[in-house]
């Protein structure tokens, strides 16, 4: 194969691990991460690929001709980034179809990892606030409940961003952000005739949707260990929300 001449086994291993890392850290489930490494290495000329995906480490063993290489890498958890995940899928499809060279694939994926555009934090704060206002409406809240939830959740979201930036663990930032949002909603409960809808909606910006859905997806596809790890992560955040909420509810009745 022509690719074997262009790119060494060590380079293929490195690149496949980088691809796996990108899929894993951007919110791919276990099957997707494993398939991404598999597809990348196969397209670059490996004839056998075995992968390991755990919640904190990625590994793979490649065979190319008579050579074999094994490598492991730490896989830190980062924010969900579906735009990068989508771009990665396109790059892999292009590589497999032979539309781009291995070198072009490498620079494309490096660019995805380094600078996929993100929405500005203030915009996320505003729209996450409105999202929770939408929840209050779905829970049959009145307009005052919707407005109150929007403000409280936006401030809660800003709190969460500030705490994540300072490196706080999930239990801590979930507790603190839920506390702030519930406290503000509770303080304004006299404004609305449906305070329960506002209180129920104001902490939903913390719901760990991606770990819950990826965790279930892992369980249903036979990746039991990783599925449990993801669901446990989600439960820790949910416990944090409950603690923060109950502390605030004690203070505002």
């Amino acid at each position, binding site marked *: 194969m022509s690719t074997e001449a262009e790119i060494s086994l060590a380079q293929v291993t490195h690149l496949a691990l980088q691809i796996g890392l990108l899929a894993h850290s951007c919110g791919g*489930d276990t099957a997707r991460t494993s398939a991404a490494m598999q597809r990348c290495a196969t397209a670059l000329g490996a004839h056998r690929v075995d992968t390991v995906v755990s919640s904190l480490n990625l590994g793979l063993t490649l065979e190319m001709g008579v050579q074999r290489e094994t490598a492991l890498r730490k896989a830190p958890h980062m924010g969900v980034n579906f735009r990068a995940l*989508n771009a990665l899928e396109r790059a892999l499809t292009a590589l497999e179809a032979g539309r781009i060279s291995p070198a072009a694939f490498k620079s494309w994926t490096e660019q995805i990892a380094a600078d996929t555009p993100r929405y500005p934090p203030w915009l996320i704060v505003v*729209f*996450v606030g409105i999202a929770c206002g*939408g929840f209050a409406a*779905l829970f049959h809240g009145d307009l005052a409940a919707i407005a109150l939830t929007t403000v409280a959740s936006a401030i809660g979201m800003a709190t969460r961003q500030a705490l994540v930036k300072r490196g706080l663990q999930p239990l801590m930032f979930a507790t603190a952000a839920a506390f702030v949002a519930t406290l503000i909603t509770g303080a304004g409960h006299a404004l609305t005739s449906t305070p329960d809808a506002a209180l129920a909606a104001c902490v939903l910006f913390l719901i760990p949707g991606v770990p819950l859905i990826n965790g279930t997806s892992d369980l249903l596809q036979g990746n039991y260990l990783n599925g449990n790890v993801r669901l446990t992560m989600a439960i820790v955040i949910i416990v944090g929300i409950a603690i923060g909420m109950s502390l605030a*509810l*004690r203070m505002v009745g």
Partner: protein
Amino acid sequence: MAHWLICLWGAPAALGFALLFNVPPRVLPACCAMAVLAVGVRYAIVTAGGDLVMATLVAASAVGIVAQAWARRLRHVSVIYAISAAIPLVPGVLMYHAVQAMLRIAALPNNAPGGALLEEAGVNAIRAAMVVLALTIGIAAPRLLWPHRHG
């Protein structure tokens, strides 16, 4: 507000989460449309007399299947649509009632009976957990039914 109009609030609820998950801008309208679809399907089933868990399962499966079809056509990854669109189905009210009942159990005086509160907390927590389970299984449904077309 008319009841069916409430379903439209699914769109902003999904939009906020889509921004949080860094969904590409061109995909945002589809996420919002699917969220309204999800809330609408669930509302229709509950109105017709179905229970919330079953209705959530059907609504989430609809989102999963539509997301898969849409994503295949545009060569996108289906989870980027499905996860944000399913978020408005999260049973916030049930979760809230469960937490509130647990808080009242914590505040009980010594030796006071807490049976009624325990029942309230338990029923709400179990219903919430089952709705979340139905939601996640529904989203994964296409991958379970057609494992080789994973996209």
